[in-house]
């Protein structure tokens, strides 16, 4: 069994970065100056975490949420209004679908995030690390979308087009840049998918366990979806909210699965006990060849200081697990 650690989603912004965004929004900071701050602050924050992590992300420092500014790169989609992100006291701007959706030929917001990752990778602190780029999954995108066009009379069609016209070209694009795509799919749950058939939606997704990591969190996911998807892609599960998944591993582990175990609670400041967590994970690590230890969801729900402690915790759990 091989064990890795990973950052999932974003990392809390530093105060200096938040100040810079404020000044940028007021027009008091130029484009170049702002970019310098982005690089400096992301590097400062992520370099501290990098020694504990095998997989990193861009920290989503350039993102307001999982949809923004990413949806700017999708033709046919406009930025909507603030809506609650599941049951969190966190709000995202929803996508308003006004026409046929398609990834733009030059996705500028993705390019900017990749540019940041490239700058980071040159730094010694990030030597040998893999980077993932978080984006919304098809069911989550559909769940939050407000459809204002006759092009999509049903959600299934919207989800299907999101896979075919947005995610697939993006996966190829991102893979070409040497990155892994991190698909956030909390809506892959029994309660939220509604009339959209996950099987049909995901049957057309390209990629493999190396290039595509699908991360599900919060609500209980359908076990057959986990089984099917974990045979083809790396799958992340939320073992904080759904600890019972460890009791019926045979029901949801696919062929040669690579599982991201979300064992550290990103929604509570209380620090987990690394020994006990590793013991819990033993059942999973006995059955899979590769395990990625992470938080259940983005660490952005936590204050920065606690997010750093939780990241350090991931490495301690890994050490206990491989020992």
């Amino acid at each position, binding site marked *: 069994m091989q064990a890795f650690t990973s950052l999932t989603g974003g990392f809390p912004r530093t105060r200096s970065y*938040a100040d810079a*965004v404020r000044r940028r929004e007021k027009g008091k900071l130029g484009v170049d100056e702002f970019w310098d701050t982005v690089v400096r602050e992301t590097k400062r924050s992520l370099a501290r975490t990098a020694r504990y992590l095998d997989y990193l992300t861009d920290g989503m420092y350039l993102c*307001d949420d999982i949809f923004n500014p990413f949806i700017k790169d999708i033709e046919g989609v406009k930025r909507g209004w603030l809506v609650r992100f599941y049951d969190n006291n966190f709000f995202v701007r929803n996508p308003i679908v006004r026409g046929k959706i398609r990834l733009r030929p030059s996705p500028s917001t993705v390019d900017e995030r990749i540019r940041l990752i490239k700058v980071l990778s040159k730094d010694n602190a990030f030597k040998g690390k893999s980077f993932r780029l978080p984006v919304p999954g098809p069911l989550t995108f559909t769940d939050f979308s407000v459809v204002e066009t006759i092009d999509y009379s049903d959600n299934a069609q919207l989800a299907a087009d999101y896979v075919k016209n947005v995610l697939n070209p993006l996966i190829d694009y991102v893979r070409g840049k040497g990155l892994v795509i991190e698909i956030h799919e909390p809506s892959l749950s029994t309660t939220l998918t509604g009339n959209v058939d996950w099987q049909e939606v995901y049957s057309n997704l390209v990629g493999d366990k190396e290039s595509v990591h699908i991360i599900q969190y919060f609500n209980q996911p359908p076990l057959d979806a986990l089984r099917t998807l974990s045979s083809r892609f790396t799958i992340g599960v939320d073992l904080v909210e759904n600890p019972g998944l460890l009791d019926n591993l045979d029901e949801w582990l696919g062929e040669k699965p690579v599982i991201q175990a979300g064992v550290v609670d990103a929604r509570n*400041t*209380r620090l987990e006990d690394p020994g006990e967590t590793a013991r819990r994970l033993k059942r999973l690590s006995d059955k899979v060849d590769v395990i990625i230890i992470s938080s259940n969801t983005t660490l952005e729900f*936590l204050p920065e200081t*606690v997010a750093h402690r939780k990241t350090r915790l991931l490495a301690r759990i890994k050490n206990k697990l491989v020992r």
Partner: protein
Amino acid sequence: MVDYVLPSLPTSVIGSYPRPTWLRRMIKYYRMGRITEDAVQEAYDDAVTTIVREQELAGVDIPADGEQRRDEMVEYFAHQIKGFKFYGPVRVWGNNYFNKPAVVAKLEYPGPMTVEEYLFLRQVSTRPIVKVTITGPYTIADWSFNEYYPSKEDLVKELSNIINQELHALVDHGAQFIQIDEPALTTHPDEVEWAVDLINRTAKGIDAKIGLHVCYSNYDLLFPYIDEFSEISQFALEFANRGFSDLHKLKGFSKELGFGVIDVHNRRVESPEEVARAIRKAMKYIEPEMLYINPDCGLKLQPRSVARRKLENMVRGVLMVREELVKRGIRSIPFRKRV
């Protein structure tokens, strides 16, 4: 105890009101260490005096202190109740942050938290009834990290005991109208059931009119429980934001309604006619004796001049409907502590 009589459709506010520019500056100077504690306290007092006067000039019958002394509705209480810790801000949306507290030890009532606020408000207002606002136990818990209590329900239970002590302290000092703010109440549908019980427990044995403000929430989850709020007399709810679309759901509403007629997230100032139209629509489902009028929520996110004009037009709209009620022989309503 005097039984007060209020004009029909009494007007009130939900709580927060924009801070005067000079108060914001004084707070900044205080935090930079450039002015003394006494100086900033004087500024708070002056701001409350000004804001209460501003509400009264706009014609508001039941003013509040505009929460001028509170930076944030949960933080204010978490800073005072013993057992909370602040690790730093978390992002709520865009580049907006909230100093989310963490419960790290058994929570303890620190002694009166809002009594001084109330006494000052009572002193500066010329109105017979004023409103005191207090953040409810469920919202404080929902907007905090829980490191200490075995369950969220246990945490809310503890907080309900603490807030209950605070309500007793307020009543002991003469408060007659207290509003508990619970914007988070319907966030987790499976918790509403026990949250209702614990809100009743919070208001248990309190000899004052207790209102409950719930905003930007799923009212379909709240309405089935209205009758079960045994200790709550009034619900202050937001309707302007939803374009007054759900009013038919008020049919059979058994409590007083604090009817939200002003959208606090939009700078456009509603006209008196619009306000009057909305009230007439609400009166199809609620008896005028059971109706109070207020904005949807606190006005603190508006520029101060917009907030003031919104209140003025709210009152003008109410005056139009009051004239119609006079023709029906309705001039006033009693101030009832319990409904």
